[in-house]
């Protein structure tokens, strides 16, 4: 396992299964819709394309992206003389993969200390993600420190502390109502002094339309740079999958203000598909790096576009290599209790 590359292979595998399993619920209605399109409409006529468009819109892909995908697909169908809906859908998946593929999605844990700032609108899952990430990085043998820089929301610091306790991660915090910049300053100084590997910065939720609050974030970032000129190494925008078109506006404004290095897509364990990330990746080139799959400490993983699409289309199209057979064993004991130490748990599989 390379020290600069968290979430290395074995985890990816474990997650693939877990993701597909979790996404099953989510993809059910989506798959049913797609299947309807396949079964009910054999002809590739106008209404087929219209339905397909609506299916994509239903996954929150957004109209522009959905239209672009369908247009491209129509051209391909014509050029390659496809006749069946199933063929067309397979091609669609390839189109979607083309949008998501070919981006470096690894967390850049490149320096000591590496500074990761978590930002996003209210309630999207920043604090929880930091709690999970701290645990993951610690269990990979990294020294982690958390800066509790949400000094605004009631009991935000308590919440961060309780999360950190679960992985025995140290927290640097000030009083509620204090200056978030000062918290970050102290945390980074401590990190440098102690040779900490990764500093995770929790920030208060803020709507991207609030200019003052966006300015505050920039200030926090500048404070970080006073201690570590190259900080932050990762600026991650946390978006929750249930969010509709507003996610695109969020990404645009946060990116403009801070220069995002990645997206965390949370709450994928629900029924929402988070299709807005297609538009975000296409428009801004900011890759989804992590996904949140629940409220447990292990419910975090890297984003794998192939698995994401497989899960999305599960039951309609078989994933290459996911055909029944020894290549991908069935999910091990669904509903089995979570392994106490996820690391060894996934290694055994």
């Amino acid at each position, binding site marked *: 396992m390379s020290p600069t590359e968290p979430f290395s292979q074995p985890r990816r595998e474990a997650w693939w299964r877990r993701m597909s399993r979790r996404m099953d619920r989510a993809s059910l209605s989506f798959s049913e819709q797609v299947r309807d399109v396949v079964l009910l409409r054999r002809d590739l006529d106008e209404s087929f394309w219209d339905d397909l468009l609506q299916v994509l*819109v239903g996954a929150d892909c957004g109209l522009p992206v959905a239209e672009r995908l369908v247009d491209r697909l129509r051209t391909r169908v014509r050029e390659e003389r496809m006749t069946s809906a199933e063929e067309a859908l397979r091609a669609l998946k390839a189109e979607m993969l083309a949008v998501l593929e070919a981006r470096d999605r690894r967390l850049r844990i490149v320096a000591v200390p590496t500074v990761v700032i978590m930002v996003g609108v*209210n309630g999207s899952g920043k604090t929880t993600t930091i709690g999970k990430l701290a645990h993951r990085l610690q269990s990979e043998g990294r020294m982690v420190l958390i800066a509790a820089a949400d000094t*605004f*929301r009631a009991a935000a610091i308590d919440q961060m502390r309780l999360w950190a306790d679960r992985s025995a991660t140290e927290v640097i915090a000030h009083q509620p109502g204090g200056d978030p910049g000062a918290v970050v300053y102290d945390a980074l100084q401590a990190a440098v002094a102690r040779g900490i590997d990764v500093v995770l910065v929790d920030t208060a939720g803020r709507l*991207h339309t609030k*200019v003052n609050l966006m300015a505050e974030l920039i200030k926090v970032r500048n404070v970080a740079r006073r201690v570590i000129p190259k900080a932050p190494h990762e600026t991650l925008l946390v978006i929750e999958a249930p*969010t509709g*078109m507003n996610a695109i506006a969020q990404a645009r404004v946060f990116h403009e203000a801070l220069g995002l290095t990645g997206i965390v897509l949370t709450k994928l364990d629900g029924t*929402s598909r988070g299709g807005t990330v297609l538009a975000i990746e296409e428009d801004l080139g900011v890759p989804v790096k992590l996904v949140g799959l629940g409220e447990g400490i292990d419910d975090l993983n890297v984003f794998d576009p192939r698995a994401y699409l497989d899960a999305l289309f599960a039951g309609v199209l078989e994933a290459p290599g996911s055909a029944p057979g020894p290549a991908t064993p069935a999910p091990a004991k669904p509903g089995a209790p979570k392994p106490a130490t996820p690391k060894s748990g996934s290694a055994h599989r």
Partner: protein
Amino acid sequence: MFESLSDRLGDIFKSLSGRGRLTKEEVELGMREVRLALLEADVNFKVARALVDRIRERAVGADVLESLTPGQQIVKIVNEELVALLGGEHRKLRYQSQPPTVVMLIGLQGSGKTTTCAKLALATRRDGHRPLLVAADTQRPAAPQQLEKLGKDNQIPVAMPDGKSKPPDLCKRGLEEARRLNCDVVILDTAGRLQIDQPMLAELREIRKKVTVHDTVLVVDAMTGQEAVNVAREFDQQVGVDGVILTKLDGDARGGAALSMKESMGKPILYTGVGEKVSELEPFQPERMASRILGMGDILTLVERAQSQMDQKTAEVTAKKMLAGRFTMNDWLEQMRQLRNMGPLEGILGMIPGGRQMIKNAGSMMPTEKDLSRMEAIVLSMTAHERIHPEVLKSQRRRRVAAGSGTTLADVNKLLKGFEQMQSVMKSVGGKGSKGVRGRARMLRQLQGMDPAQLGLPRP
């Protein structure tokens, strides 16, 4: 980001100078745009389709009013349909004649339940009730502490968990606590949960079995996308929903989820959350929501907000008081509240073309929400007498105010200095003659042009 429906339709019908009746073709042309506009606003696609069918039916053959273009006529019909769907029964909470009235807030994780509990409690207090909050979220770390803090800051009693009881028992105990404290409204804060999480849904049913809940309110984030309809339907079928509160409308989300939920459940939207602070709760307004969804209401909203919040009359009354040297801390606090109620300044400016640039120029001079609330806390920590006669605030009292408001002595000093300065500005304005319409107008202009920083906002 998005074009408004009227822009879209305007483009399409540019070539048509049609008068008389809307033809089938014209309507068809328009309906595609209507559907797209709804989808862009996050209206569920099935809901959008149903709506478009209804609108089509009404539109074909409809008379185009003398003063309208076909595009405008369609917009009018669409708007009327949306208002009709969003409107209907409008009500507050179902206050019981036999107390206590029990309200339960439910919803997905992070939708805003805990914050809204505190907001609702304050709303019930304004209605003359005595609320109690029950912290029944034993899932999210520090959730009870969050509610406890909100309660403490606003003098609302909170029934806290004991560390071992399950939420249904906590709720039952909360009711007993309410009886003991003579509170007549009980608001239950529950843990966020997915609408497909069966054990967690069963817990909500269990609560409803243990205590009589008069209003089960679904709290939904206004930024929610296509799944809003499934979330609403499942919660309604599995637990039972009586009303909805839509949160985070202070952002720029179109809020099409409101339509999706109305269409799938038919339950009234009671309130909207328009900010992180407990004062930021507004009654639901169907007309405004409809124009917001269609992307046409921004300017309208702005104008209305500005008018209702900072209306001339209030300003004039304030101005008169100022001139007479009778401007007190109370007036000042009121003014600050109005300023804040207009919504975050930047949000408002952001609605106007060119507004974003203005904000950029203003930069860090703008008071943050935090500045305003700190200031409010300081004034609120003064006695009634001190607010009218701030000159009695000598160091002893100032120290008490600082402690009571959780600020520093320097903050209090700064605020009082600012207030003094403003009063002297006012007096000099008054001295220059503020009689007659012209004088008053000039003064109002001066008031409006004042930098908030001049009003003595304590800066961190």
